[in-house]
């Protein structure tokens, strides 16, 4: 009895410390794990050819992304009822003005996400923004880019490769800075 009792006394603390160490390990993993937020700007599409986009603009013109090769293309996924979209709008207007005087201006497009034409027209006539707005019927473009929540801003290089995804609201100067970096890296 005394022999088995003492062996149990020896083994029990070892098992308890192993279980304790495992629990502490799990806790450590949970505490230090990076939260998977929606603002995560990573995307499997970065560095890949941009998905095919064939649609129409609010002015009833055809839009084919593949025909825009040679220019930097910016897609801004937008909905007129989304608060951060409204908040970042002045930033996009300023960006577009600055780009219009640049040597090789980037083409800015608004991709209408789950919104109707009239609301978008009303929003732009009130808040400005002279660039093209393209329709996303049934959300096909949003799914092709993996956009779940607006606003999102995507940059496509002159060769048609996806170079940047900015999830969430644009901060002042962010798009200019990032585009300048990309132009330096991949050539304008």
């Amino acid at each position, binding site marked *: *009895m005394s022999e*088995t009792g003492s062996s149990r006394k020896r083994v029990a603390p070892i098992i308890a410390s192993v279980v304790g160490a495992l629990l502490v390990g799990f806790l450590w993993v949970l505490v230090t794990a990076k939260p*998977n937020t*929606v603002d995560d700007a*990573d*995307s*499997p*599409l970065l560095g890949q050819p941009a998905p095919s986009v064939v649609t129409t603009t609010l002015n009833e013109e055809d839009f084919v992304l593949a025909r825009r090769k040679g220019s930097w293309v910016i897609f801004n996924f937008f909905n007129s009822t989304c608060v951060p979209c409204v908040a970042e709008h002045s930033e996009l207007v300023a960006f577009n003005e600055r780009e219009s005087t640049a040597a090789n201006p980037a083409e800015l497009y608004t991709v209408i*996400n*789950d919104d109707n034409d009239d609301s978008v027209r009303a929003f732009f006539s009130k808040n400005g923004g002279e660039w093209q707005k393209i329709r996303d019927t*049934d*959300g*096909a473009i*949003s*799914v*092709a*880019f*993996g*956009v*779940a*929540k607006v606003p999102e801003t995507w940059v496509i290089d002159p060769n048609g490769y996806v170079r940047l995804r900015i999830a969430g609201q644009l901060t002042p100067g962010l798009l200019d800075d990032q585009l300048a970096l990309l132009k330096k890296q991949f050539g304008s």
Partner: protein
Amino acid sequence: MLSAVALLAFGSTRTSDPQTQADRIDAITKVLACPTCQGESVYVSRASAAESIRAEVARQIAGGQRSDDEIIGYIEARFGSRVLLVPRSTGLDSLIWVLPVFALVCAVGTLGFAFRRWKVVGNDSISEEDAQLVERALREEQ
């Protein structure tokens, strides 16, 4: 008993492949998570992103070019593996399937080992002192 076996045999041999396009859309959207909701499938959710994914799945099935797995792969390649409600059984994700079975085998093994030990301890460990005590008590009773 016989009917249960018959039903089981019928259930396991019956082909479970969805037949119509609507069935395929339902089957695929049930294993995809709505990317903007918590724990809801695309099949259940009415969020805008889920509606878009459902429309894309329907479009691809109507196109007839891709299998169900390829359509799920297309959505996963866009939104990342967090849109999969059922984790993949390859790579690191396979641990999700393997670890519980491993833990169960370990637990049953440890319990079996412990029960055996308790039994052995119970048979052999009457101390001299205890034996004398019992003997004394029995004598006193007589």
